[in-house]
């Protein structure tokens, strides 16, 4: 394992601080038609993702919970990225986003989600950045057990 000095600014970009301090779509959704819980027991991150899906399109999405800056910002950025998108596109984005963090990044425009690419250099934090997405996926497919990324 490479032990050269990691660049913390690559991980903690201003967009991440912004979304950590003021998460977007950060509220419960009483009339949600899909929802799921996510939990990383190791670090205590916990969140619930709410969805309103209509005609196969994510009409609305929100989340509540608490966690580290990476997991909170990732959840917030996720809600912005998936709102208004067809469910199939959201699932494909999850797949590509996961690859961005762990594998060969696919050639596509990630928009603001690209700020999370710095997580690649911090393997211990990949699970923080993906918890919200796993939870979103569970909400879409109707999984009963809480999502976990560890």
């Amino acid at each position, binding site marked *: 394992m490479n032990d050269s000095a990691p660049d*913390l600014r690559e991980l903690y970009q201003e967009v991440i601080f912004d979304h950590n301090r003021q998460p977007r779509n950060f509220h419960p959704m009483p009339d949600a038609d899909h929802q799921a819980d996510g939990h990383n027991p190791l*670090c205590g991150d916990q969140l619930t993702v709410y969805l309103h899906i209509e005609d196969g399109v994510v009409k609305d999405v929100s989340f509540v919970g608490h966690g580290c800056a990476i997991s909170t910002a990732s959840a917030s950025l996720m809600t912005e990225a998936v709102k208004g998108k067809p469910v199939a596109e959201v699932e494909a984005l999850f797949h590509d986003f996961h690859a961005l963090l762990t594998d060969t990044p696919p050639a596509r425009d990630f928009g603001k989600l690209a700020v999370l690419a710095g997580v690649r250099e911090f393997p211990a934090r990949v699970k923080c950045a993906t918890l919200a997405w796993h939870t979103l996926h569970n909400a879409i497919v109707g999984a009963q057990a809480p999502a976990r990324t560890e």
Partner: protein
Amino acid sequence: MSTTTPAARHTGAAPLDTAADFPILSRTVHGRRLVYLDNGATTQKPLAVVEAERRFYLESNANIHRGVHWLSQHATELYDAARATVQRFINAAHADEIVFTRGTTEAINLVAQSWGRAELRAGDEILVTAMEHHSNIVPWQLLCEQTGAVLKVVPVSDAGELDLNAFDALLTSDTQLVAITHVSNALGSINPVAELTARAHAAGAVVLVDGAQAVAHQAVDVQAIGCDFYAFSGHKLYGPTGIGALYGRGRILRAMPPWQGGGDMIRTVSFERSTWADAPQRFEAGTPNIAGAIGLAAAIDYVQDIGLERIAAHEHALLDHATAALGAIRGVRLVGTARHKAGILSFLVDGIHPHDLGTILDAEGVAIRAGHHCAMPLMTRLGIPGTARASLAMYNTTADIDALTAAIGKAQDLFGTHRHA
């Protein structure tokens, strides 16, 4: 400074300076000097321990208790000598009261599955505390499922001290076992285990003490404590991983049934009926971690050459220094402020999640633990998801604490939280 003559210089009143005995401490991490403050998770190993294991494999390796050949007898002697070293270390009355295990966790599971399954009935009660490590909770939950016994929990205060009145109230004639940690791994609180043992015995209960966080930091005398079982791990005592010990009071240990079957733990085997070896061999089925036991004995020798009183004095002085240094940083809150504490500092930094803090400190070469510290019920009790934890060992210095506080300052700069403090 030579690393081949450990402890020879550790005499007199000079400050303890042992870092040179630990080769790993001279490495860098992320281009920085390694500042290792995760000793509650595992301690680093002095060269004396590494060499003892290496020497065993190079010069003495054979299986024990079965060979007619010289090398097997030699290895057996070393293994038995290691047991006697552990016995003297915790002042057990007899070497037969020491069972080698993989560590504290296996030692506690041994008591649960051997003593517990034989002795407990539905409605019996097991008393633990809210500050236990998962390894002193879950084995008892499994036992409760198997026997119908009931787990009761002694609460802790906000400062992280046991509620002794509640302890007395929860201790009843139904209490068969009190299982309690000597030192809290998450908060550093030192429990009055001798006093609690006396109260438990007066109520007719057997007492197990989890000593995982205690043995490297203070002299432990199981006869003075009076407990019936005492469990600890080698790897938190500057020894190898995969080796630990269970002390069991002879009278109780001899009456306990086996918990794992196999070679070494039997006297005779036939398809009609097998008979068991005496304790402690009865509880050591299969070829044990021979090299680990010898490495553990080397660790104990190393620690005793320096002296646990000197180690404790050094760590307490460093704890006081670190407590003051962390307390002086705006936005830092210590979690766990018991009056009697070992060298463990759990803390929170305003506006920075412990996990983020752990990553930032790591980039500065400072290794701490972030999370629930395998004490999720305690974190729930304190109303926090987890903490950052710096845990001290004999080789830590004020320079390490300076590195810690400087790195916390960098995290606050990065997060821009100074102004919110």
